[in-house]
């Protein structure tokens, strides 16, 4: 690949939610900083895996990119167009370029609509597809996601979870997007079905040049599909780098712990390896610790970690970045 240009740019995004109490006289109790200063760039056709535990802000970041929630600061730029500045009709028109696949295929499809209606609605929402062209285009779409064209006459309840997720992907593709945000697309599926959906997304990205933001809590799933991995903790990105390198040799103490906590389905390797056990739970985003958000659970924390907020900084020559004050000491250079 010869240096493809930046396709999607996320610039210092901050998405905060006020927490209020009371009905008429609202009192502000605090602010949840779900996403707190995230900067990322994606190239055309790239798959970026966004990983983190529950409450780290990964879904909010995905929704912010798609303008489903508006950030209080920062810009999202897709192919030179500033999405965060768009409103109303202009935003709706722009939406055909970016679509979303949700976690739960049982909740994200309308149970009263046939697959044909679901897909036709999506197609016609953006450009006027002539009625007589619809069946042909829908059949092609269904084939693309690995379903038989007969499926279009059926209702969602007639399909299994994996097939429903295929339909949800078909719906997202119906408007011809260039960017797909998949929020935990395989978490609700059984192991044997997960692999099918991951293969499908990887193939679609390859064949259609689709840029994919793949959000998941499961590093082993992300490792397989993603070109690069971004690890989030409490609203910030703590590590970013090529997938294989992040998994093989994580830099940030949190990534190290996260990877060591993944159970390996191999009894001998499982018995041999040392597991890093993190103390405590992830802190509440309503009341995050000062300094590095990870320092209360970090095995390497020193005094200054509680005071200075580390920035995401390049590490070494490769494309790797980490947000840790002691990253050099910990990784022995």
């Amino acid at each position: 690949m010869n240096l493809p240009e930046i396709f999607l740019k996320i610039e210092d995004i901050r998405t905060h939610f006020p927490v209020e109490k009371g009905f008429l006289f609202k009192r502000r109790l605090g602010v949840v900083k779900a996403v707190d200063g995230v900067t990322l760039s994606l190239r055309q056709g790239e798959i970026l895996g966004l990983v983190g535990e529950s409450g780290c802000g990964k879904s909010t970041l995905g929704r912010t990119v798609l303008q489903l929630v508006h950030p209080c600061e920062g810009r999202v730029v897709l192919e030179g167009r500033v999405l965060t500045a768009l409103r109303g009709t202009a935003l709706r028109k722009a939406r055909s370029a970016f679509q979303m696949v949700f976690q739960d295929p049982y909740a994200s499809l309308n149970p009263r609509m046939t697959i044909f209606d679901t897909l036709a609605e999506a197609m016609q929402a953006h450009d006027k597809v002539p009625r007589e062209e619809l069946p042909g285009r829908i059949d092609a779409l269904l084939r693309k996601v690995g379903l038989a064209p007969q499926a279009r006459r059926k209702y969602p309840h007639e399909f299994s979870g994996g097939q429903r997720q295929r339909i949800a992907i078909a719906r997202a593709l119906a408007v011809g997007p260039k960017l797909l945000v998949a929020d935990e697309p395989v978490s609700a599926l059984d192991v044997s079905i997960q692999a099918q959906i991951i293969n499908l997304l990887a193939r679609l990205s390859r064949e259609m040049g689709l840029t994919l933001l793949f959000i998941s809590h499961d590093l082993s799933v992300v490792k397989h599909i993603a070109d690069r991995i971004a690890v989030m903790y409490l609203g910030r990105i703590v590590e970013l780098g090529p997938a294989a390198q992040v998994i093989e040799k994580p830099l940030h103490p949190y990534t190290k712990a996260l990877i060591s906590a993944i159970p390996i389905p191999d009894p001998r390797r499982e018995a041999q390896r040392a597991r890093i056990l993190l103390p405590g739970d992830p802190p509440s985003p309503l009341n995050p610790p000062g300094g590095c958000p990870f320092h209360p659970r970090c095995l390497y924390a020193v005094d200054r970690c509680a005071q200075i907020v580390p920035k995401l900084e390049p590490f070494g020559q490769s494309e790797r970045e980490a947000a840790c004050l002691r990253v050099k000491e910990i990784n022995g250079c």
Partner: protein
Amino acid sequence: MPLLTVQNLSTAFHTRHGVVRAVQDVSFQLERGETLGIVGESGSGKSVTCYSIMGLVPQPPGRIEGGRALFGSVDLLACSRRELNRIRGRRISMIFQDAMTSLNPFLRIGEQLIEPLMIHEKIPRSAATDRALAMLDEAGISEAEHRLKMYPHEFSGGMRQRVMIAMALITKPDLLIADEPTTALDVTVQAQILELIKKMQSELGMAVILVSHDLGIVSGFCDRVMVMYAGRVMESARTDDLFYDTKHPYTRGLRNSIPALQMKGAELHTIPGQPPDPQHPLPGCPFAPRCIHAVDYCAQEEIVLVDSPPQHGTACLRVQKENLSV
């Protein structure tokens, strides 16, 4: 003598839309202090197996169609409710996937912890409170005295699971049944909880049945593993044998489709097709329609779990007849 012997357990649900055979002909044994993993995808009958043993299957619509579950000399499936209540919560405890729905949201943690002791051991409240404090401490909950007065919603998911473990183990049971105890938790917290169960197991010398959909968890935790599919046991073996000498095509397929083990770039190995519909069981082996090794008789003959070599049971007809190696 084994701690628990389950023989030919079959459980069905009689619904308006027909009979769902959730568990069919499941047999296994559990020794004292042993850890058994039950692995399977959703609908494979792994949870219903445990619920049947604990007498937690709602009847109707559920019905235990046959089999025995001998715990010592008591058949858990046939004994009286009184007898069952003397065993459940004292000698056999269970923890569930979702601690929020299994704890009573209206009762303080303290009340819920003390209750099993006051019922089963009939000790005074003050003594029970002392035991509860000690138990919370064991389970890794700091400031136990203060925590006893808190309600379940004031705890995080991992802490709630710790409370539930403390509650299950406070009577020092001989057997703990853990039904997907970490599925709702983050990986870093999952590692903490598994470590805690392991620690408590070695302290109390209890046996554990761990139900999970994750072969990874089972591989590091269990002495033996039973793989279930469509209500039946497909393969049952010592953990090492199951992983390094896999006999059943389904176990092989399940292992191969785990992303953790595969190299990036290559297509992930998949098991084609969908799990069977339990309401319309097919004759023969339930895995046959998805099996790459299936031949004609797979879809016709009944499957049985046969041990060969000893301690390694397989229900694959082709393995049994032709010594197929997967």
